[in-house]
């Protein structure tokens, strides 16, 4: 039976027979509606099928639909190589933007390929390089550079009452003035994996992939509630620039407007592509939202600090003439 988005009864990926799912992925492909866009995945890798079912577990199983913004194909290598050192190859729109990955690591290749394509394609949105979560209808956006603890903090927040919007993109829609979900698994690296496993033992993880170009990577699945609400936008709430420093006490300091502006504009995937629209979008975000720098090493303490500040954020947005 095929599932289209308007089917009466759509099963979650985790409820689909693995053989059926692998067959669908290998034939016409499957469609992952991640909120702001739909990804089309097509692959003859049975391993990718299993890994997708694991980390997109709560997403609806859709194997036919009218439209997808991003198309990604992952193929097992052919020829003699497949016997000695098998690989998987990613193609999107006729391009092969990355080197092949080992055949047992198709998921990291798929995730990086999708993120790369999203960064290239979604120029109707301002794509901040940031984690994003929601509470009370307001987005808390965590812009940061790699290695700053952004994904760790985003993952932890998503396991403590905040709705995950994205681990990688603060996707701001200049037309609606809201943040949109680009809900994909949270990619955790190296020691962050154990940190979150300890922090949230019930979190659902895919397999660990050692020796990737970013070290060991594991993907944490989004919670079912976040998946169910992935089409709910969030108004801009606040910005927190996280920085994980080993052994540091938690430091929470307000950000000057100019610092926040720089952190958003100069750390976005497509700011320069958007031109004046991007400039106006960043200005409007800085005008609307308070921003802080958070230096932390203790995750519980960092979350408590954010929770304590959140009532101030809510008040800020309730005041008239903002």
């Amino acid at each position, binding site marked *: 039976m095929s599932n289209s988005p308007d089917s009466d009864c759509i099963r979650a990926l985790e409820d689909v027979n693995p053989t059926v799912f692998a067959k669908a992925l290998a034939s016409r492909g499957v469609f992952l509606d991640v909120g702001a866009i739909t990804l089309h995945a097509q692959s003859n890798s049975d391993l990718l099928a299993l890994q997708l079912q694991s980390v997109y577990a709560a997403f609806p199983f859709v194997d036919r639909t009218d439209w997808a913004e991003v198309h990604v194909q992952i193929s097992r290598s052919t020829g003699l190589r497949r016997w000695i050192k098998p690989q998987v190859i990613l193609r999107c729109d006729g391009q092969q933007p990355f080197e092949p990955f080992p055949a047992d690591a198709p998921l990291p290749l798929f995730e990086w390929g999708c993120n790369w394509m999203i960064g290239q394609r979604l120029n109707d949105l301002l794509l901040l390089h940031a984690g994003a979560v929601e509470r009370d209808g307001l987005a808390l956006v965590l812009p940061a550079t790699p290695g700053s603890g952004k994904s760790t903090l985003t993952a932890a927040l998503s396991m403590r009452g905040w709705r995950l919007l994205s681990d990688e993109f603060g996707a701001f829609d200049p037309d609606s003035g809201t943040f949109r979900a680009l809900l994909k698994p949270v990619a955790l690296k190296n020691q962050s994996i154990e940190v979150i496993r300890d922090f949230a033992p019930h979190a659902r993880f895919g397999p660990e992939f050692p020796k990737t170009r970013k070290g060991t990577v594991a993907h944490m699945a989004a919670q079912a509630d976040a998946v169910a609400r992935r089409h709910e936008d969030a108004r801009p709430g606040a910005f927190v620039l996280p920085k994980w420093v080993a052994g540091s006490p938690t430091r929470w300091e307000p950000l*000057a*407007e*100019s610092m926040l*502006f*720089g952190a958003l*504009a*100069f750390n976005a995937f497509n*700011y*320069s592509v958007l*031109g*004046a629209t991007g*400039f*106006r979008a*960043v*200005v409007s975000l*800085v005008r609307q939202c308070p921003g802080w720098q958070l230096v932390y090493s203790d995750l519980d303490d960092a979350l408590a600090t954010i929770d304590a500040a959140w009532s101030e954020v809510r008040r800020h947005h309730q005041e008239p003439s903002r």
Partner: protein
Amino acid sequence: MARYARSEGILIEAMGHLWAAFCPATGETTLLNTESVSILEVLEAGAADEATICDLLAEDCGVDAATIAAQIEGCWPSLIEVGLVREVRAARTMPG
């Protein structure tokens, strides 16, 4: 003496003690100090040379032009680099 002109359609917004500026011609964004923005404000009325800019700012601020010249000396490279200001060459006249 070189004359300078402000690029068309630039956007400037206050960002705390600095200013964010966007230049449509180059697509560049930069953060400016107040001195740089004051130059752009003077040039909004039309192209001018550095001495004229200093005189106008000196008159406005109530200080001498040499002090202003020293204050804005470091502003030019970034203004020109991101395209917010361009040098205007005087048109050549035919001899005789």
